[in-house]
């Protein structure tokens, strides 16, 4: 259990949110040109990092907006929250 600072609503309990998985996975520009390996990479393969991870979250029981988050998955500490389309504030 941890608190998340929604960029639109402010600090709320994590149970109000839905995790959307790894962020910044770019949708293929030419889907018809993709090989099976590239599809697998896009659809299924994940970094699943232990440590600093960039991820998407949705405030599903609040404003219902998507946003990005940087979180240390080894201890659930949130490092930064930023809006969709923005550059990550930390590397």
């Amino acid at each position, binding site marked *: *259990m941890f608190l998340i600072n929604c960029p639109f609503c402010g600090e709320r309990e*994590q149970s109000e949110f839905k995790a959307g998985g790894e962020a910044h996975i770019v949708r293929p520009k030419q889907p018809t040109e993709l090989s099976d390996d590239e*599809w697998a990479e896009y*659809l299924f*393969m*994940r970094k*699943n*990092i*232990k440590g600093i991870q960039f991820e998407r979250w949705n405030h599903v029981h609040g404003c219902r907006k998507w946003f990005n988050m940087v979180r240390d*998955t080894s201890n659930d500490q949130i490092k930064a929250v930023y809006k969709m389309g923005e550059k990550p504030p930390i590397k």
Partner: protein
Amino acid sequence: MKNKYSIFSLIKNAFSYHENWEKAWKDPEPKKEYDAVIVGGGGHGLATAYYLAKKHNMKNIAVVEKGWIGGGNTGRNTTIIRSNYLWDASAGLYDHALKIWEGLSQELNYNVMFSQRGVMNLAHNLQDVRDLKRRTHANRLNGIDAVYLNTEEVKKFCPIINTSQDIRYPVLGGTLQRRAGTARHDAVAWGYARGADEMGVDIIQNCEVKGIKRNGDTVEGIETTKGFIKTKKIGVVAAGHSSVIANMAGLKLPLESKPLQALVSEPVKPIIDTVVMSNAVHAYVSQSDKGELVIGAGTDDYVSYSQKGSHDIVEGTLNAILELYPIFSRMRMLRQWGGIVDICPDASPIISKTSIKGLYFNCGWGTGGFKATPGSGDLFAHTIANDEPHKLNAAFNINRFVSGDLVDEHGAAAVAH
């Protein structure tokens, strides 16, 4: 040769106040080189080493474990064993394991306390009823025992269930696999460790893997906190940390690691003599031999390695438990914990070779790996020794995410993932 555990060894050791029992396994330092190294000393890893030594005559092998053996998910699961999976590939895999469970205590000369007390899965809506009936038929076609029970039969089999039709999710029926049940999780790890140690396997604890050394597309060994170990074959059975090891080798896996929680109550007299699971409301419960209710909750939906999990998950599970079993309303919970489970997109495991020669992965067991321990070890050992999968784990290769030939047990298995 180890002394056999028996009534006679028990009596003999009683005379020396049980102070002279032989150590069940040694505590060796790693050698410079092994024919194969298993990464991860949980039930699956130890079973893999045991079957490599026993069935494939590979004696110069080691199991490296970052903590102590059986201290990860082997010691954190809810010990349920069943094989009533929908798809043929899964049914073959899990029933192979169940058949080994049935003779495991005798084979290992170690009481794993396997108890075939039955597992009942409940249906709470019409779609559940259809799905469970379909699964029952599929199970029987695969030679797996399964019966469908109506509400009265559910009540008869487990009288403390609230079968009132007025509750939020009324019990409309259920399935029962009588050969299913539970086992003592620690004993499984210890039994396999003792068996493997006897055949010469080195079980090296407090030895964390820090890197995988490759020469092009071939593995050369592993860097550990106890130094470099040279080997041509590495079998990774690291559960929630599989992706961490894969990243060391420059591989990506289709896994997400999430907390899965469980809890036990204070011990009480025998009240529930079977295992009851409910897919729709996600609550399952059994009773340990000590008398504690063992309750399994769900996974959190975010990636985490923190072994904690959120309170609302536990709350949701206990809400469901209380509605199904009003008799538990004043029970107090003793302990709650989380384990990190590695979940595949199709909720089926991976027991497979990889694109790197000599590197094998056994992962993706998600929320249901304990039941498969003996079968998983047996098939993974076969895959490592022959560099080819056994026919029972051929479908569980890593390439299924490229070919699209998934084993989609999400929601089709007897419990929610």
